[in-house]
């Protein structure tokens, strides 16, 4: 029974990966990462229910805090990038190309 929750978590995680690799829009990529974090949260809560221990809840709480911090910083970076180049395409930023 509990396994269904876990399977759902896996499915959401995989959809998140799909979003990261197939979209070029900066926001969509960022939101897919948030989706992956949520899927992980679901897994934590499920396991915590399975073992009847509160550790999973605490971890999910901490993950949420980290996600919030990361969201703030990532969006600040997105604003700066938009100011710099004027478009939201991840393919434009190719300074890593050696």
């Amino acid at each position, binding site marked *: 029974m509990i396994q269904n929750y876990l399977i759902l978590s896996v499915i959401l995680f995989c959809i998140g990966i799909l979003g990261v690799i197939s979209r070029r829009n900066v926001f969509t990529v960022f939101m897919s990462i948030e989706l992956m974090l949520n899927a992980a949260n679901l897994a934590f809560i499920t396991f915590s229910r399975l073992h009847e221990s509160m550790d999973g809840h605490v971890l999910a709480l901490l993950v949420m805090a980290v996600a919030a911090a990361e969201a703030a910083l990532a969006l600040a970076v997105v604003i700066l990038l938009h100011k710099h180049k004027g478009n939201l395409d*991840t393919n434009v930023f190719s*300074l890593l190309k050696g």
Partner: protein
Amino acid sequence: MEHNATYLGLIPLFPLIGALVIGLLHMLTCTKRPLSEKMYGALACVGPILSFFLALVAFFHLKGLPAEERFLAHNVYTWFAVGDLHINMGFLADPLSSLFLLFVTFIGSLIHIYSVGYMAGDKNYGKFFAYLNLFLGSMLILVLGSGPVVMFVGWEGVGLCSYLLISFFSEDTDNVLAGNKAFIVNRIGDLGFVLGMSVLFWAIGAGGFDYLALQANAHNLTSAIGITVCLLLFVGACGKSAQIPLYVWLPDAMAGPTPVSALIHAATMVTAGVYMVARFSFIYAQFPIAGSVVAWVGILTALLAAIFAMFQKDIKKILAYSTVSQLGYMFAAVGVTAYSAGIFHVFTHAFFKALLFLAAGSVIYALHHQQDIWKMGGLKDKLPKTYWTMMIGALALAGVPPFSGFFSKDEILFSALANGHTGIWLIGVLVAGMTAYYTFRMMFLVFHGEPRDKEAYDHAHEPPAVMTIPLIVLAVGAAFAGVLNLPAIFGGSLNVSHWLAPSVVEQHPHVSIWLEIFAILSSVAVVAVGVYIAYKKFGQGAEEPEFTGFAKVGYNKFYVDEIYNAVFVQTYKGFGSVISRFLEPKVTDSGVKLSSWLYQKAGIAFKALQVGYVRIYAIYMVIGLSLMSLFLSQTIN
């Protein structure tokens, strides 16, 4: 059974250290300010003389022991031990090797002293003595080695030094080519030696691979393997001691300085093959067929070389072919299991042949490097010391009694006859006559009659004392050494044969005394005939003839060198040129170029992966993750 004698290791060590020191001094000073020749000469002679004293110590040490226990061993260290193969750097002094030690160090020292005078003025003076000391050290390792592997170290060392010394006057390409020829032909023999050693090890090496252990296990050899070992080792001996078919290097080796010819190509290196056969007498004695092969190759070489020597005009080439011929005698002796006779001939031959070479060097030195006997003549009064010592050497070589050569050669011929090898005896007698003929042809043409080249004759003068004293010492040896092995018929007691008995496996057949007298008389008769013919043709002076027919063929050494060149050398060269013109560019080079081309293309392909977009890198990560999951999911079930 062996006694320990830790001074044995010093005997080869002194000349080797000398070589190192002199070599370093020469290298460091030859371009700036060369050291004085006196110093090099002194440094060079110290090593051999010290080795000679130690050889005397070893000899008297052995003499003090009872006959069955005459083995002195010195194990310096374990060289390598792999499985059954356990080789020590060890030295063994027994009667055979101590006899060799004595005359090698003695004649080596004398020739070092002679070279101090002969090589004076040469700009590579130091280098010469470094090489000469190195040679002596290697020869001593060869003689003293306690097993075939250590002997082989010395074997290779003397081959190397032979090459270095033959090509010593390296400005002339012919000398270098002669050195190359010597080394390459020697190498062919060495291959046989190594194969023989390997088969021997494979057959009976499990119980230890030094002489004493091999002798204890030799009865385990089957006849097929034993004969193979004997013949393969003999191939090595053919290379080193210039027998058919590998004798061609020795006449060319006369391109080296005369002391080198005396030491290496007369007295010591070329006798290494005979030493080796005598060392392995415990194998050769088991297989008489192998012995017969050795004996017949030897005596035929003696015959062939004597024919060549009868027509040569270069004084050193006559002596070179004479050496080949005498070596043939020695192999004939050890082939019919008369080991002590062969070794005794090695001993006396070392004295009189070194004497002849040194005296020839003295003549060449006096006439300012003239070597053609048809341009000499009448030097008897101008070079008296040289003349009388050389005459003693010639008498010994020809086998005139009572000089040493007569006793040793006669012992060989008598043993051949006594062991039933009549054919060998007959050819041997014939060759003895030819030997007498060519030796006295040389003596008459060089020293008697009218001088053929007036100007050189006028400038000739006796060489300095440092060169003539060794001649006199050697002459004494050549004259009186026969006393050491007098057979019973002359009142002696075969001292050398008895001395060598613990080292070699030999039977002395009992034959009637009339046979012995017959053998002696036939040798003397044939020698007399040879001397007489030479006197008739050349005693009153003669002019250089035009050779025709058989004489022409003989003078050109039966065109053997040309045949070898056409059959072997050109084939090999053609093979090499095919490889370098077709095989190398098309096959190996293209293979190498293919792999480098592949690397370049792969590099360009991999460069395409570095796109610079993070999304693509994320895709790479996912690809990796998915492959990993594919792999991991196999493990879960």
